[in-house]
């Protein structure tokens, strides 16, 4: 028994981890090729944002909170703004709400395309990575024309938004949506029919509905397992009351399902954006709001591209919040990794990690293979990725 135990290896991945919002250190215990256990350690990009919020006023906080994440910056600001507006008893004008949704859906498109490219890269399908990122530039262009910045758009202000759309812009967006829809159809075909790709995704990392519920998975990861969890549908906020979305659900729960769900969500976003551009009413885009926010506590939930984003804001009646608590969707989904990893091959790990979309834009993490008897052996993330690709050749 002890003999057998000695042959187990622990493979730490991370934490040296450029580019992840929440770099985690994973330790996979492997028995031969099969992963038997997994643990996560987080906190390497801890900057102390929540604390810093307490020393800045509400307007400043918005710029700070946008920078929690560079991929889904708009939803962070939206969650915060909705909370603060609720505390202040102010309602943003309908046009502002619609523009918020517009920006959120554009952001979802850019985020899903980004993820899709990175996941394809992890699978060794670099051509697809280049294609998706080329198409993603189309959305980035829209966002830039809309707001002036490619990443942190700062669309929100307290009490409304600060950008407006006109006919010219709306024509441009519609044209681009057609182009993207066409491309997405192509990607859908690749994801569901390409033999080599299916070999890496079908039946891998299956997360059953019960487990997904139990582990508190959110966003596309949960929806791919058949859990009906989408804040936009369950508890519509902001403009989603006026412009409802359909929830995209898949029952299979494997990696392929996660791809399919995200791609289908893209269609939904295209549809919604077109609808907003058609139906948006002229009017004010912001209302006045006092600098001092009345005392109180509020919870605000929005659906980020990766799942439910949760904000708790406590005000003490001054210009600065008393406490801001953020819970990001990636954090909820880390829990599922340890679950889906067990029983799978080490070679599947890059894909599984990419599958939950943990803001995964890095390919440069160190992997160290340690054992009792052998000197430690280093493997970086690239190496592990290559290993996975070779393994499936």
């Amino acid at each position, binding site marked *: 028994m002890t003999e057998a135990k000695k042959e187990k290896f622990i493979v730490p991945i991370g*934490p*040296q*981890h*450029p*580019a*992840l*919002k929440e*770099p985690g250190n994973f330790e996979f215990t492997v028995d031969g090729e099969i992963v038997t256990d997994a643990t996560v350690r987080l*906190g*390497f*990009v*801890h*900057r*102390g*944002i929540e*604390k*810093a919020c307490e*020393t800045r006023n509400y307007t400043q906080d918005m*710029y*700070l909170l946008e*920078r*929690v*994440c*560079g*991929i889904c*910056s708009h939803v962070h600001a939206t969650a915060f703004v909705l909370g603060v507006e609720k505390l202040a008893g102010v309602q943003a004008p309908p046009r502002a709400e619609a523009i918020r949704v517009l920006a959120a859906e554009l952001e979802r498109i850019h985020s899903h395309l*980004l993820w899709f*490219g990175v996941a394809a890269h992890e699978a060794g399908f670099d051509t697809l*990575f*280049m294609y998706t*990122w*080329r198409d*993603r*530039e189309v959305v*980035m262009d829209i966002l830039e024309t809309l707001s002036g910045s*490619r*990443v*942190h758009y700062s669309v929100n202000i307290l009490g409304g938004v600060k950008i407006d759309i006109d006919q010219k812009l709306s024509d441009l967006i519609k044209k681009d949506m057609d182009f993207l829809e066409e491309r997405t159809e192509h990607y859908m075909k690749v994801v569901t029919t390409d033999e080599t790709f299916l070999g890496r995704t079908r039946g891998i990392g299956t997360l059953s509905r019960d487990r997904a519920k139990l582990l508190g998975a959110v966003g596309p990861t949960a929806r791919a397992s058949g859990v009906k969890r989408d804040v936009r549908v369950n508890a519509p906020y902001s403009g989603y009351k006026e412009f409802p979305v359909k929830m995209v659900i898949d029952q299979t729960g494997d990696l392929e399902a996660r791809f399919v769900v995200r791609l289908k969500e893209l269609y939904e976003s295209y549809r919604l954006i077109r609808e907003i551009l058609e139906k948006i009413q002229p009017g004010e885009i912001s209302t006045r709001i006092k600098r001092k926010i009345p005392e109180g506590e509020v919870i605000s939930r929005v659906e980020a591209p990766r799942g439910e984003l949760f904000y708790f804001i406590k005000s003490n009646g001054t210009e600065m919040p008393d406490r801001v608590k953020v819970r990001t969707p990636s954090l909820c989904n880390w829990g599922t990794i340890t679950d889906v990893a067990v029983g799978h091959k080490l070679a599947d790990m890059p894909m599984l990690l990419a599958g939950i979309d943990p*803001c995964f*834009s*890095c*390919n*440069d993490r160190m992997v*160290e293979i340690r054992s009792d008897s052998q000197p*430690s052996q*280093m493997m*970086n*993330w*690239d*190496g592990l990725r290559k290993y996975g690709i070779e393994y499936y050749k």
Partner: protein
Amino acid sequence: MRTDSENYYNQIVNKLKNWARINSPWAIHFNSGSCNGCDIEILATLTPRYDVERLGIKLQGSPRHADVLIATGPVTLQALDRLIRVYEQMPDPKYVIAVGSCALSGGVFDGCYSVIGDLNKVIPVDVYIPGCPPRPEAIIFGVVQLLDSLKKGKKPAKFVVPNDIPDFKLEEKSNGNN
């Protein structure tokens, strides 16, 4: 005693090395606590619209193969020793490009309790690229600036172990395996 011919030989080799380095700098990217915005823009420079690989710049995984460290983020205390470790693993001569307002001054995270704020306090920085995040064009421009200064004979800066950073002692932290 070196003979003149040896000196001459060395000179030629050095020139050749410099030429090769300038024509194809390999870069490693390190995130020291950034929000991801800058990192994505760096990644975007690799993709078809901007395509830095046409300039011979290659982003690759291991610090041991890199000439240029592209660092983002305000240097969190947790990432600090990793950053120094990555920097020390790079072979000489090495250059550092700091991308984003965060790496310049802490940006929005200025004053947070767990960030240092200025990359230059930790490792010597050769080029700063401001912006939050800088556009991919700006990042490419920054790299070109570095290459230009190399052509003019810029020498890599000396690395001094930072000792004015609270709670941080290099000896303690780096005696693990590199």
